[in-house]
C-alpha cells in the first residue's frame, strides 16, 4: 500500500506492506537510524518519535496509521548546526551514559515540556516513566529536562 508521511518537514511517499511498523519505515525506508529499537514491546521508549507533535512509541504504530500525518525524529530537532534546546540541555548536563536511550528520551522530553513547561522534578520523573535508561543515568537526564523546561518557560523555544 502507498503511504505518504511528512517526516522532519519533508514529504515522503513509499509503497510498503501494511504490517510495516513506523520505526522500521523510518530506519529502513528513509535511512533515519537515529530512532533506536530497544525492547520492541512498547516498554523501553527508545523508539519514541513525535506524531503530530506528540510522543509515541514507533515500534507500536503502523506506518499505515501515520499516513497523512507529520512525524518528527531526533534528526529533525536541530536547526542546521544549532542544537534544539533539549539536545543542548542534555549535552550541558551530560544527560546520557551509553546514549542508546537518548534519542527516545529527548523526543519524550520535548513532548512533555511542550504539553506543560511548568514541571517540577517529580513531574519530570513521572513524565519520563515510559523511557528506560539501562545505565540508570536518570539523575542528569532529569536535570537536563528541568533546565530545558526553564528555558521554554522563558520563551527560548
Amino acid at each position: 500500500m502507498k503511504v505518504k508521511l511528512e517526516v522532519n518537514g519533508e514529504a515522503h511517499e513509499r509503497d510498503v506492506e501494511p504490517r510495516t511498523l513506523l520505526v522500521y519505515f523510518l530506519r529502513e525506508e528513509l535511512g533515519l537510524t537515529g530512532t533506536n529499537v530497544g525492547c520492541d514491546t512498547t516498554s523501553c521508549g527508545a523508539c519514541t518519535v513525535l506524531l503530530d507533535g506528540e510522543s509515541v512509541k514507533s515500534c507500536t504504530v503502523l506506518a499505515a496509521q501515520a499516513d497523512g500525518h507529520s512525524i518528527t525524529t531526533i534528526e529533525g530537532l536541530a536547526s542546521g548546526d544549532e542544537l534544539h534546546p533539549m539536545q543542548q540541555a542534555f549535552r550541558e548536563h551530560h544527560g546520557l551514559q551509553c546514549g542508546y536511550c537518548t534519542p527516545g528520551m529527548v523526543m519524550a522530553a520535548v513532548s512533555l515540556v511542550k504539553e506543560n513547561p511548568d514541571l517540577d522534578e517529580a513531574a519530570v520523573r513521572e513524565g519520563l516513566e515510559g523511557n528506560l535508561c539501562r545505565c540508570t543515568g536518570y539523575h542528569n537526564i532529569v536535570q537536563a529536562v528541568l533546565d530545558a523546561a526553564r528555558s521554554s518557560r522563558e520563551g527560548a523555544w
Partner: protein
Amino acid sequence: MIPAPFDYVRVGSLDEAISALVEHGEDAKLLAGGHSLLPLMKLRLATPSVLIDIGPVRELSYVVDAGDHVAIGALTRHHDLHHDPVAVSQVPLLSMVAGKIGDPQVRHRGTIGGSLTHADPASDLPAAVLALGGTLVARGPAGERQIPADAFFSGFLESALAPDEVLTEIRVPKAVGGHAYQKFVRRAQDWAIVGSVVARVGDRVGVALVNMGPTPLRALAVEQALAEGASAAEAAERAAEGLEPPSDNNATAEFRRHLARVLTRRALAEAGV
C-alpha cells in the same frame, strides 16, 4: 518483531466501519490506537487477516455531560480523558485512572474503547467502569444496544460484542464523591499485579479488582458487606472471596489474594468509605 501479514482497510465513519466488519467477517479486527492489538500481533498471538483502522473516525472521540451521566466516545484517547474538563469535574475517578495507564506515549495512542473491548483483566479502565456501574453502547448492522459493564466481560480477552459490532460509547454515572485506585506495580509503567478501584456513586459503593481472575471483575463480597453495614476494614477482608487469581512470575495466587485485601482496605480508606 513483525506482525503476520494482513490486509489493511481504513474507514472514515462508524457506518463504514460496520460495513467493513460485515464484509470481512470474523477474521477482521478493528484497529483503534493499536496499543493492545499490535503488541499481540507482533507476538503472533493474534493473526487477524484484515485490520479495519477506525483511528480516523473522529466522531467517536468526545467526553460530554449528558445530564445524569457522562458519555465518552469509544475512540477517546487516555490522554484526552485524563485532561478533559468534564471528566475531571464530573467523573474524576475515570480521569485519574486514565492518567495511570502505561506511560505518556501509550496514553497518546490508546483509547478507552480499545481498552474495554480488549477485556484484559490486568487493564485499568475496565475495573474503573465496572466500579462506576457503567453502560456500554454497541452498534452493529441490526442497530444499537446497551450492555451493562457487568455483562460485558465474558471471558479472558473476550467481550460480549458480536463480531460485526462496534463499541461506540461508554456511559458512566456522575460520581464526584470519594474514589480511589490502588495499583500495585513493581515498575512505574507496568501492568498492575493487582489493583483495586473504589467509587462512591450516590449511596452505593462500587469496588472492582484488576488482575484477580480471567476477566476484569467486581468485588461483590466487599460491596455486599458494605451494603449490609460492615466497616470498611471488615469488608476489605472479603476482597478475594470466591476469586481464583492467576499465579505467574510476578505473584502467586495467594500473594494476589493478600494484595486484593490490602489494596481494597487502602482504597476504601482513601475514598473515605
